[in-house]
């Protein structure tokens, strides 16, 4: 859901850019405190992987496609602060290099996808982890559900922006209904892709999954983790 220039007026776009910059600043500071040298390449890979999967649009309804957003996936793999930085870089590369997402709309897109959607999903992830058993399967389920919710949250954030500064003729109620409806479907795809990816990483290197750091690692994988 990369917003092009022109959908949202200049003052709302500028306001979003200010809030997004502040949010990314907080994320960078926190990331700097939490990262060690080992995890920097992992974060780079997470961002690169999200970029790659965002290119893979899948059909969701007639005439409509969806693609991974990746905020919750990033947060579960490398933590929400580092994850927000990863998604921000992906969005910046997409806008600056591939004309996907407007330049003046970059603040809106970062706010919706790297910050609000990611955090909304992360809250759901933590809530589910708190009630589910402390096991790898719980991490997978929680990731999938949280990722789907995160997409809907991002869609709602867009609807707020449209309500404040939308430059289309349609009413906010209409746009909100359509956005949430479509993105619930896309969220199912997001949830499945996120769950599969988290599951794959947990099966090979569970020590590299931030959202599973408190889950006991099975012995054979613990040996692999020391390499």
């Amino acid at each position, binding site marked *: 859901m990369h917003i092009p220039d022109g959908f949202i007026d200049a003052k709302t776009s500028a306001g979003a850019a200010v809030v997004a910059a502040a949010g990314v600043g907080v994320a960078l500071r926190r990331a700097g405190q939490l990262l*060690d040298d*080992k995890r920097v390449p992992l974060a780079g890979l997470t961002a690169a*992987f999200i*970029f790659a999967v965002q*290119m893979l649009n899948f059909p969701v309804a007639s005439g409509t*496609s969806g693609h991974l957003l990746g905020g919750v996936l990033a947060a579960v793999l490398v933590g929400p602060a580092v994850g927000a930085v990863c998604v921000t870089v992906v969005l910046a590369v997409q806008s600056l290099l591939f004309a996907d997402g407007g330049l003046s709309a970059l603040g809106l897109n970062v706010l919706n996808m790297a910050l609000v959607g990611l955090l909304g999903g992360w809250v759901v992830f933590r809530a589910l982890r708190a009630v589910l058993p402390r096991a790898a399967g719980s991490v997978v389920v929680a990731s999938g559900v949280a990722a789907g919710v995160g997409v809907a949250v991002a869609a709602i954030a867009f609807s707020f922006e449209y309500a404040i500064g939308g430059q289309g003729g*349609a009413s906010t109620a209409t746009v909100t209904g359509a956005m949430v409806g479509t993105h619930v479907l896309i969220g199912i795809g997001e949830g499945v892709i996120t769950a599969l990816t988290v599951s794959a990483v947990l099966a090979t290197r569970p020590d590299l999954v931030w959202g599973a750091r*408190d889950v006991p690692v099975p012995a054979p994988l613990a040996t692999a983790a020391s*390499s």
Partner: protein
Amino acid sequence: MKRFLVAGLLVALALVVFVSPRASSQPDGLERVAIDHDFADAADDHALADLPTADYGDGGMGPSWAGVLGVGVTLAVTGGVLWLVRLRRPAVSPPSSPG
């Protein structure tokens, strides 16, 4: 760790090289809503729409090469930015709860 990183990078590259040309070309959720509710025309042309990379290679590069470029640039920029912020503060151990 290195094996994992290399494997992950190969997966990302395989996805953009082999799968992206087969990705759906239907408009995504937001575009669809805009078309259906008559505000798609509100979109301004992108200032950088003339680059050969624009729209993931529609400008001339093709999606596979665009994908490889994007994966590489994203990897480098993310790693670079995080490495720089990492230098500014020493690492502290993460808390033991999933926070």
